[in-house]
């Protein structure tokens, strides 16, 4: 049988299919619905140092081929995560990737150091779509120097595989990917949600409680594919592609663009069995095309010899 195994630097996974942060909680809710078949690793909801209440409602609304959300990183905080969620998460037999975020560099470092002391965490993912309160609220992921220094500080506190999850709300994402590499990240995750807004025309105000939100789902897929393509061309780091993956064909687009693995987000809400289905679909595709491993296809779309022109 063709292999779905993948090595993302030091992170070895049985399957390239991951759960995108924030769309699978801490796994508990999906456990009764989903066999673990085909799941390569579970990426948790982003946790922060202190518990976070989250944003006022409404927190989400459907948009054409997507959804806009402003959850506000509601999470139980580091201490409760370690005490309550982490032991429960160990019942999943797949590797566990913990997503963290902070409002200052120190918060990220404290989180990383505390998690370094815990067993059973395969990797950390840095959610870089978080405002830096000391720098007037600019996202860590928007400024190359800020990002590089943050990743470097976390690197010193966490010895395992480190994933930098990039925000697409930047001019040239490959610059941020390079900065993450310089800081010491070994894996890039791209992309987080795109900023957006829906206006309630009856109330004549933004619909979400937080006013603006993050767009996800099929609507953002072409944006995400292009960004993965650009990151692949600019760096030698393995990439986890994220953004609107609903089925096998979508996952293949990301792989061909340069993703060694992919994460499924919004699709979990629509069809909880998306990941096992894509796993089966990928195996079938490989068998039909006489390939032994999905890794043979990573970045294959770059072989056309043509360069992209910005239009």
């Amino acid at each position, binding site marked *: 049988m063709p292999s779905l195994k993948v090595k993302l630097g030091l992170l070895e996974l049985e399957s390239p299919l991951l759960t995108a942060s924030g769309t699978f909680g801490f796994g508990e809710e999906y456990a009764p619905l989903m066999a673990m078949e085909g799941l390569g690793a579970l990426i948790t909801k982003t946790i922060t140092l202190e518990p976070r209440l989250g944003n006022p409602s409404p927190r*989400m609304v459907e948009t054409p081929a997507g959804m806009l959300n402003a959850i506000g990183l509601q999470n139980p905080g580091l201490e409760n995560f370690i005490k309550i969620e982490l032991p429960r998460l160990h019942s999943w037999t797949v590797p566990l990737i913990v997503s963290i975020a902070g409002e200052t560099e120190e918060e990220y470092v404290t989180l990383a150091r505390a998690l370094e002391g815990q067993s059973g965490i395969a990797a950390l993912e840095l959610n870089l779509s978080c405002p830096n309160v000391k720098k007037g609220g600019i996202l860590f992921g928007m400024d190359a120097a800020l990002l590089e220094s943050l990743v470097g500080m976390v690197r010193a506190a966490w010895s395992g595989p480190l994933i930098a999850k990039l925000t697409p709300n930047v001019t040239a994402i490959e610059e941020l990917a390079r900065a993450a590499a310089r800081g010491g990240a070994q894996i890039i995750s791209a992309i987080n949600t795109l900023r957006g807004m829906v206006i309630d025309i009856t109330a004549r105000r933004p619909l979400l409680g937080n006013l603006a939100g993050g767009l996800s789902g099929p609507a953002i897929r072409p944006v995400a594919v292009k960004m993965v393509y650009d990151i692949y061309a600019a760096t030698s780091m393995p990439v986890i592609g994220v953004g609107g993956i609903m089925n096998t064909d979508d996952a293949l687009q990301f792989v061909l663009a340069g993703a060694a693995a992919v994460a499924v987000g919004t699709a979990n809400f*629509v069809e909880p069995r998306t990941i096992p289905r894509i796993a089966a679909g990928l195996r079938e595709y490989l068998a039909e095309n006489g390939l032994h491993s999905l890794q043979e296809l990573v970045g294959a779309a770059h072989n056309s010899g043509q360069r992209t022109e910005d239009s």
Partner: protein
Amino acid sequence: MKQCSAQVRELEEVREGFYYLALEEPYLAATALPGQFLHLRVTTTFDPLLRRPFSVAGTSPQTGIVRLFFRRLGTGTKLLSCLRRGDPLDCLGPLGSPFMPAGKSPAVLLAGGTGIAPLLFLAEKLGGTGDEVYLFYGAATAASLLPVERFLPSGPRLFYVTADGSAGETGLLTDAFRRALEKGLVPGELFACGPRPFLAILAEENRRWGYPLQVSLEENMACGLGACQGCAVLLQKDGKRTYARVCREGPVFCDAEVVW
């Protein structure tokens, strides 16, 4: 809770834009409780993208039937209204936390608009006679009132209320209920479902009345399972504010814990 493929047994437009949908799915019929809902995949494509939540309005465990009522509003409910007998329908359910009757008689059920759905189921489960269960059911006009007697042959004493007086009492549901209280009705406990403003007025009034009141709330939903935190509603518990998930801790809440 499971993901199931239910089969459409019956679909009828009982009032203009209001539909009755009977699904056959033995597991759901055997396990769903009043207040719980199903999260339906209304299409096999991704347009619209997300599932749509609907309260269970009744079950017949012997025949494996689950009943829903829905109002045609947008794309999702339009697609549902085009289903045919025998069509499969992908459901997640039963989801959410049900009403918890304490058995205090009489139970008074207050339904505004499509809020009738979970309360029909509750009335059915409470059983009892007209002295034990009262159902106040309000809508804008007679044309949008569902014929409750047809789906609930015996049981509660029924009070229809319409804003324009085209059926039953005239005015707001809360006004009709207040009048009943003035005439001597002494509820044991209250259950309500309907538009948020109606529930907010009821909860406000109930601060004086002090009856045990459970309300079923709505919020936009993505996962329906408790994973995304998208359906949050602000609660106040022991002086502390927290968000609860309408799809998990809810949709049924105690009136006093909701920050209206």
